[in-house]
């Protein structure tokens, strides 16, 4: 004890430097973890977190008795899987192709593709609205011009998986392309020089040098993203479908459901139970993903 006190004295200045960050995390990250107990209570604003009555697993029993639980779980996981795969495939392909374009031009293309990354989902919501709006939207007016029936996009759940995947790809592909592009540039130029001397074609170089050397990075990133499968993209699923109730079947994810339960329906306990479910399963997935990566290559694991 005495010795530890002595050690602490030697380290106290650094400790003080880290104190603001520690206190911040205590209040804004660790206190809310204690707040997870709300999921097991019948929360009432007037009684507060500790005064509200315990109800055991009641909230969960109710949650999993509804169709919503299955729907939001399925949507969250499947959409994330689709986003991860489409974005990775498209970005990898574009990065390899971009590497073949002269640097001067490639810069312009990079900037253009990167542009949507700078927009918030709210603004992308406006862009989507300009296309999908029922009476004046560009798509419906174009359909009419060709003598086809307009489609009520915001009331018709069918096409939304495709719409969301395309919008996500549109916003994310440029950024991911640049990440892979940076990876390709990092590959030692001597490999390509040697291949050139041996008379290899561009395609052969891509297949035999670029892809194999990038593969570990890509695979690791894919596995790590399993850890995020339970965390949905709220902005994408809230603003692009414009929070339209007709579309919940194919657009609602855990995050939008939790938000609506809290702010629009006002069912705090239900929202808390859903959030608890998301936190816990999400945590298990992160542990799992990291475990797999560690088995394959410990250098790339998160810890």
């Amino acid at each position, binding site marked *: 004890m005495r010795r530890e006190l002595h050690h602490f004295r030697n380290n106290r200045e650094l400790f003080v430097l880290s104190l603001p960050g520690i206190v911040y995390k205590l209040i804004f990250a660790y206190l809310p973890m204690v707040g997870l107990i709300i999921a097991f209570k019948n929360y009432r604003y007037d009684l507060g977190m500790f005064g509200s009555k315990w109800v055991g697993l009641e909230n969960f029993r109710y949650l999993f008795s509804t169709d919503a639980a299955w729907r939001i779980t399925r949507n969250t996981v499947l959409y994330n899987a689709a986003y991860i795969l489409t974005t990775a495939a498209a970005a990898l392909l574009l990065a390899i192709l971009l590497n073949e374009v002269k640097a001067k*031009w490639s810069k312009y293309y990079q900037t253009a593709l990167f542009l949507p990354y700078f927009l918030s989902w709210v603004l992308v919501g406006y862009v989507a609205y300009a296309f999908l709006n029922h009476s004046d939207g560009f798509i419906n007016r174009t359909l009419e011009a060709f003598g086809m029936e307009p489609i009520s996009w915001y009331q018709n759940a069918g096409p939304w998986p495709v719409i969301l995947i395309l919008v996500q790809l549109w916003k994310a592909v440029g950024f991911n392309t640049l990440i892979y592009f940076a990876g390709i540039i990092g590959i030692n130029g001597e490999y390509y020089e040697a291949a050139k001397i041996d008379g290899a074609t561009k395609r052969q170089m891509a297949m035999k040098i670029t892809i194999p050397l990038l593969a570990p990075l890509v695979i690791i990133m894919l596995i790590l993203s399993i850890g995020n499968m339970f965390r949905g993209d709220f902005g994408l699923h809230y603003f692009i479908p414009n929070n339209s109730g007709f579309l919940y079947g194919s657009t609602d994810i855990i995050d939008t459901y939790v938000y609506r339960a809290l702010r629009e329906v006002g069912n705090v306990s239900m929202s808390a139970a859903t959030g608890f479910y998301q936190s816990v399963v999400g945590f298990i997935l992160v542990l799992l993903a990291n475990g797999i990566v560690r088995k394959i290559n410990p250098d790339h694991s998160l810890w």
Partner: protein
Amino acid sequence: MTKTTKPSQIGLHLLFTVLSLIVILPFLLVVAVSLTDEKAITQNGYQFFPKSISLDAYRYMLDAPDILLRAYGVTITVTVIGALAGLLLTAMTAYVISRPDYRYNRITTFYVFFTMLFSGGLVPSYILMTQYLHLKDSLLALILPVLLSPFNIMVMKGFMSKIPIEIIESAKIDGAREFRIFFRIILPLSTPALATLGLLISFTYWNEWFNGMLYIDNPNKVPLQLLLVRTLKSIDFLTSNSEFTQQLGIDLASFPNNSARMAIAVLAGGPMLVIFPFFQRFFVKGLTVGSLKG
């Protein structure tokens, strides 16, 4: 060499030109609608090449600029304060865990890193902010929740670990205290990382709408992105109830409803879309560094 690549070069340029157009054209549609005469919208819908151009939407916005200016004021205040405070906190925390000789180095790292893996989620945070800290309708509610990201700490730590420990040791021999070392030596040496992260944090604050949706009701404290959220919702209301407004005899056609709202989107989102691309390389640098273990 170059001879054989020519036809494929043309193909590549064609592909990337088309892709760039697919990315950029949607923005131009929004701009075009904001410049379209309201009557032309009712007649022809949203078009890339409006039949009759009108600046009414912008005139209407600039006649009553208070809402937009106030929203810019809120967003700029939050961004500047949040970025400065967040950057300082990030650097302090990162520096401490980057020091291999710090006794509580591992436990502090774990303490920070764990918050990346597990979180209390929305409801507990919401109740903490509103019921215990009473931050509803406070600008602090826009600043505090995103002040210190563990991800940024790890990026910063990765950078600071590369500062040779000899520099710190020799400063200590000269009698410098830890605070002095941090502020006088470490911070100046970290300017490249500080610039990159400062930009990332500013960007986060500028584009933040979620905390606004949760905590801000007071119209005087609405940041830009929340103004956009509210406008988007009201478009939805007016257009989905167009029969209702027609019955009431409200002439939607004379009010620049569609174009004004798209004009808000242009005025609120446009400036950043022009500025941020200049800092593109910082974004890539900041995030590729972060994807590696620090």
